[in-house]
């Protein structure tokens, strides 16, 4: 069997079907940033430790730096850019990050919002310790995590109250 240098991949990116040919050596991080301009996906360590490149694939969080782009064929990918609605209205999570001052330098923010998106998508109630656990794959050096946890808890409470 022959090795492949490029692979044609078709996947859903933020709700749209996209097709591209990727060098099989590329990480999903690189393809999202360089091919699709999704610059919210940040490179912080390249080894899956800091979580700055977190994206959602088929509903789960992944570090896109240690995920081969070739693997994303036929999958559903969501990045921070996909959280706004068509008219550009930001999600409740993004708003809560603004309101709770959960943003400082902003470099870890997209990854944290994606991990929060996943946690909140379950519709479950989490204790603060459980929120910490769900966000433990994302590192932040600016906030001490306090306001990030507050923001997530706030959205969770608001959504649970609405339902």
């Amino acid at each position: 069997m022959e090795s492949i240098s490029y692979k044609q991949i078709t996947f859903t990116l933020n709700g749209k079907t996209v097709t591209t040919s990727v060098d099989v050596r590329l990480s999903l991080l690189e393809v999202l940033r360089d091919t699709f301009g999704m610059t919210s996906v940040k490179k912080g360590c390249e080894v899956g430790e800091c979580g700055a490149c977190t994206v959602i694939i088929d509903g789960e969080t992944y570090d896109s730096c240690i995920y081969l782009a070739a693997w994303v064929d036929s999958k559903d990918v969501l990045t921070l850019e996909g959280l706004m609605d068509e008219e550009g209205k930001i999600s409740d999570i993004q708003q809560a990050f603004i309101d709770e001052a959960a943003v400082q330098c902003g470099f870890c923010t997209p990854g944290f919002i994606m991990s929060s998106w996943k946690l909140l998508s379950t519709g479950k109630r989490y204790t603060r310790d459980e929120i910490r656990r769900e966000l433990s794959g994302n590192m932040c050096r600016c906030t001490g995590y306090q306001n990030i946890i507050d923001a997530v808890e706030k959205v969770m409470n608001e959504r649970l109250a609405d339902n």
Partner: protein
Amino acid sequence: MYDIQHYYEAKSVEDAIRLRVEHPEAVIISGGSDILISIRSGDLAGCSLISIHGLDTLRGVSLDPDDTLRIGALTSFSHLMKDPLILEHIPVLAEAAGKVGGPQIRNIGTVGGNVCNGVTSADTASTLLAFDAEAELQGQKGKRRVPLTAFYKGPRRVDIEKDEIMTALLISSKAYKDYAGCYIKYAKRAAMDIATSGCSVNVKLTPGKDAIEYARVAFGVSGPVPIRISSAEEAVQGKPLTEETIELFAEHVRAGINPRTSWRASRDFRIQIQLEMARRCLRRSIERAGGEIVG
């Protein structure tokens, strides 16, 4: 961009085996949380890869007709954490899987990769070992099973033939029925860490729940590969649920462990915590099995 020489994608297990034969120098990649990092660090730079990432038939947990738990090699840690069969029969394995890295790593990392790496600190390995798990390997000649105790040959060396891939980890019903266990991961921080040491204990109590019928204990980072301490297991067999029994267990653990000093931790420190972990794991396992420790 990863420095990968050749990249092959397996479409089926048979395909993977054929690729293994055709490209013996190539490395198997399932989740990538170790392999890609080694490519980046230079250790595996320029290597060729056989990706088995797409082999979805190897994901998930099922029961064989004889009630053997079959854990597909590509099952992710986060899957293990919430799989109903695991939670019903070996909740401690879900507990161990939940200690791996963080959520993103638990989504990409696979239980097969955790074992095939051959590293002593693997979080699920000690629990699998403590449940007498077997590796199921498939090659050109078909399938074979190897007990994990024999599967580990040495640091980063495991018993996989050049034409084989691991397809599943198997735990027989005899090994898990009526057992309750506990896993303690000791790490320098509460998430995103490798184990300074890991201890997994499980026990089966007598029907009256007043003595230990069988106990099993396995450690990570007590030696070059995950190990069982059979002398400690034998020592407490039939013993009452007392603090003396727990101390007896710890004494035998002490004789059986042999951690080394590395820059990550000293031998003396590892011995200190491993003894304490053994005590606490046994206590909690007994409690989880419905026993009560006296004295």
